[in-house]
């Protein structure tokens, strides 16, 4: 990956964003819930619907019990006759793709939207359908099982510790190539997918996060992560993951983690990473030169990771 000739990625501003309150069951429909986040994000970013050049949405069909789950939100994200890219992964991966679209010169302003409703079906049972159908799913292995194995290695617990309470929510963030003065900008991104079969990788580390963070550091010119960040906003669903996060990102032990409150009090599937990006941007806005690290994770025991470095201007 290291290529000295590669240009530093163009800075992308986080113009604004909004999220719905995470509740155990949001009785609104998915479009109603998403509309609140989108309208709030446009308002926060001070942009109009017509200022948005493209939309990246994140959703997972089986989680929503709906084929092509993005069609539920096409209208409320303002994607009618616009370029919409639908990514089936955590919202942070969607945000990173929006950064790539802007850096490629394809679009100026991109709206990123993620939604998830854990209330719709037993979430961990659904995750069995994300496991290898030949070797793992027939055993009843789900994301919780793999997280439990990881917790056993890290914390010597017999089962997974306290879990973030999963609910319903949506988040929307507006990213742009035009950087208003004082805006938080994304200066580096990285994402990574680790081995799927839990016995194939060293579950006692988040090596995928190490790679993802390494890519983001290289782009952002972060040389010493131990002192680089005023704040880190990790996507940790279980208490044992914080240690994995700190080790893999090599951030300083004194770097404040999740001053926003983090995920433990409530989060929604697929939405977590995007809310971390928003929290990270808000944490440093108005403090020029300050940096924050935002993190999204998905899959069993952090198989997928995505990192964005946000810097205040």
């Amino acid at each position, binding site marked *: 990956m290291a290529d000295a000739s590669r240009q530093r990625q163009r800075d992308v501003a986080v113009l604004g964003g909004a999220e719905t309150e995470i509740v155990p069951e949001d009785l609104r429909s998915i479009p109603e819930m998403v509309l609140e986040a989108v309208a709030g994000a446009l308002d926060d970013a001070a942009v109009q619907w017509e200022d948005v050049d493209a939309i990246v949405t994140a959703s997972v069909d089986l989680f929503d019990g709906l084929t092509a789950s993005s069609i539920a939100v096409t209208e409320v994200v303002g994607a009618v006759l616009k370029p919409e890219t639908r990514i089936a992964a955590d919202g942070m991966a969607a945000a990173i793709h929006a950064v790539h679209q802007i850096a490629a010169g394809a679009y100026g302003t991109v709206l990123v939207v993620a939604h998830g409703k854990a209330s719709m079906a037993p979430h961990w049972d659904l995750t069995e359908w994300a496991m290898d159908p030949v070797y793992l799913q*027939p*055993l009843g292995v789900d994301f919780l099982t793999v997280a439990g194995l990881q917790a*056993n290695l890290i914390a010597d617990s017999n*089962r997974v510790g306290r879990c973030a309470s999963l609910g319903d929510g949506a988040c929307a963030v507006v990213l742009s190539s035009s950087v208003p003065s004082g805006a938080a900008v994304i200066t580096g991104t990285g994402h990574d997918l680790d081995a799927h079969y839990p016995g194939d990788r060293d579950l006692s580390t988040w090596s995928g996060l190490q790679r993802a963070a390494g890519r983001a550091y290289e782009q952002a010119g972060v040389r010493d992560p131990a002192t680089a960040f005023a704040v880190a906003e990790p996507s940790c669903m279980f208490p044992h993951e914080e240690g994995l996060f700190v080790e893999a990102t090599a951030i300083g032990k004194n770097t404040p983690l999740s001053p926003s409150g983090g995920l433990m009090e409530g989060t929604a599937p697929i939405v977590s990473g995007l809310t971390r990006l928003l929290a990270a941007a808000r944490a440093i806005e108005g403090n020029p030169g300050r940096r924050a690290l935002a993190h999204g994770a998905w899959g069993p025991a952090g198989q997928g990771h995505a990192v964005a470095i946000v810097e205040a201007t």
Partner: protein
Amino acid sequence: MILEGTIRLPFSYAAGGIGTQFLIALRDEQRILGARCESCSTVTCPARPFCSQCHAAVTDLIEVGPAGNVVARTETPGKGVFGLIRLDGANTAILHRLVGPVDQWRRGARVSAVFAEERTAGINDIEGFVIEGDQP
């Protein structure tokens, strides 16, 4: 209003060339196969078509286990006790059920595979792993 809507559909997934050999060996011979990579010598277990470490296609299958050591274990509420077990002769760990008294499960414990009486060429042809010496 809330509508409770069910989706009910059967799906059928190919086990592939290596997967078929692995599952038939469980069913017909009660043997566990690993896949040995010709490039990097890693033995991946259970046998799968791509080396778990260097990702090269693998064709060389060898018997591993049936005994090994517990690398990690967990109890998933409502679903049972699961462990990662590094079988003798393998470089990677198999994920499967641990059967028997829960309080015996320690990392590093020696365990051995117990095969199901009725076998159908599936991963459940292994009933689970028990502490060595506890086999029926």
